[in-house]
């Protein structure tokens, strides 16, 4: 399927470049509906890869790239189950999202995330699967999970640790603070910063540049330089699942869901 329009995203293939567009209001929260659309995308990816050289991931939502996991959906589902079932349910969700993100991470295409606005939690983790992140100067990156009594669950820590220094990972993880595109560039997390509203244009121009190279060579270089941190990704699922069933997490999620204050995106 070269083109697709789903409930939460769409994709198209044109001129050797696949574009995957996140489009779920208000801020591309990643819940079951987006997971199902992402699973459909990765099931079509092999066919797309045979006809393409590059891949761009971006958001149509004004608020930003993605605010992360759909915490309201997560809380509501957990509320309907006992602790054991909730733990099992969250592990199943994580296994599915990891399968999707690992497939994106290891695609032989050169992959680029064009990021604007909020790029938080699971959204940040989705962007981290890409080879390059090109950020609008108004983009912000954050791992807010510790504020909920959790760790990032979509592979964020292993991927970020693979890409940049451990000290920066600890700073983001242990303080839960958000950083802007300039800081992300200086940390090595972002490869280019674009003017406001220009990240997608810069990503497209970068994608065109990558299509000039021999595909087999580019894919071999990527396999060499970007190994999947499989063992750490497995451990992350275990740690997250163990932490998730604690009452403090449910309380943190409840506070977030019921928060009508000025910082609902920063629990």
């Amino acid at each position, binding site marked *: 399927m070269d083109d697709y329009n789903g409930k939460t995203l769409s994709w198209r293939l044109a001129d050797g470049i696949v574009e995957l567009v996140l489009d779920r209001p208000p*801020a591309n929260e990643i819940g079951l509906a987006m997971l199902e659309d992402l699973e459909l995308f990765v099931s079509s990816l092999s066919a797309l890869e045979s006809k393409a050289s590059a891949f761009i991931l971006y958001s149509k939502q004004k*608020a*930003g790239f993605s605010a992360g996991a759909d915490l309201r959906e997560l809380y509501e589902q957990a509320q309907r189950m006992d602790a054991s079932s909730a733990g099992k349910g969250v592990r199943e969700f994580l296994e599915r999202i990891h399968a999707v993100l690992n497939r994106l991470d290891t695609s032989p295409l050169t992959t680029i995330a064009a990021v604007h*606005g*909020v790029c938080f939690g699971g959204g940040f983790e989705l962007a981290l699967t890409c080879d390059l992140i090109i950020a609008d*100067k*108004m983009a*912000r990156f*954050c791992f807010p999970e510790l504020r909920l009594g959790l760790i990032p669950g979509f592979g964020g820590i292993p991927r970020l640790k693979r890409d940049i220094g451990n000290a920066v990972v600890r700073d983001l993880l242990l*303080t*839960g*603070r*958000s*950083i*802007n595109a*300039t*800081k992300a560039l200086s940390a090595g997390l972002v490869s280019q910063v674009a003017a406001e509203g220009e990240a997608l244009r810069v990503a497209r121009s970068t994608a065109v540049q990558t299509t000039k190279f021999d595909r087999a060579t580019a894919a071999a270089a990527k396999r060499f330089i970007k190994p999947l941190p499989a063992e750490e990704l497995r451990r992350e699922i275990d740690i997250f699942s163990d932490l998730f069933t604690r009452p403090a997490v449910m309380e943190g999620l409840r506070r977030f869901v019921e928060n009508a*204050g*000025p*910082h*609902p*995106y*920063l629990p």
Partner: protein
Amino acid sequence: MKTIEQTTDEILNLAATHFKYPRADLQPADDFYKKLGIDSLQALELLTRLENHFGVELPDYEVQGVSDFHTLATRIQARL
């Protein structure tokens, strides 16, 4: 080194320009959430604009609970 008055003035100018609010109606003691009618995402956007304008980092936890321009200016001033 900017004075706190200069910093506050630049914040008010930036907020007025970006949120299309009459500059003359903005005062340092104003609650920017109420005055500008902004939500959490717009507040985050304001934070990013201020960081870009002043060339500083403002960790969220230093501005959490801050809702008036003057206090915001003191947080920025401490990082100039």
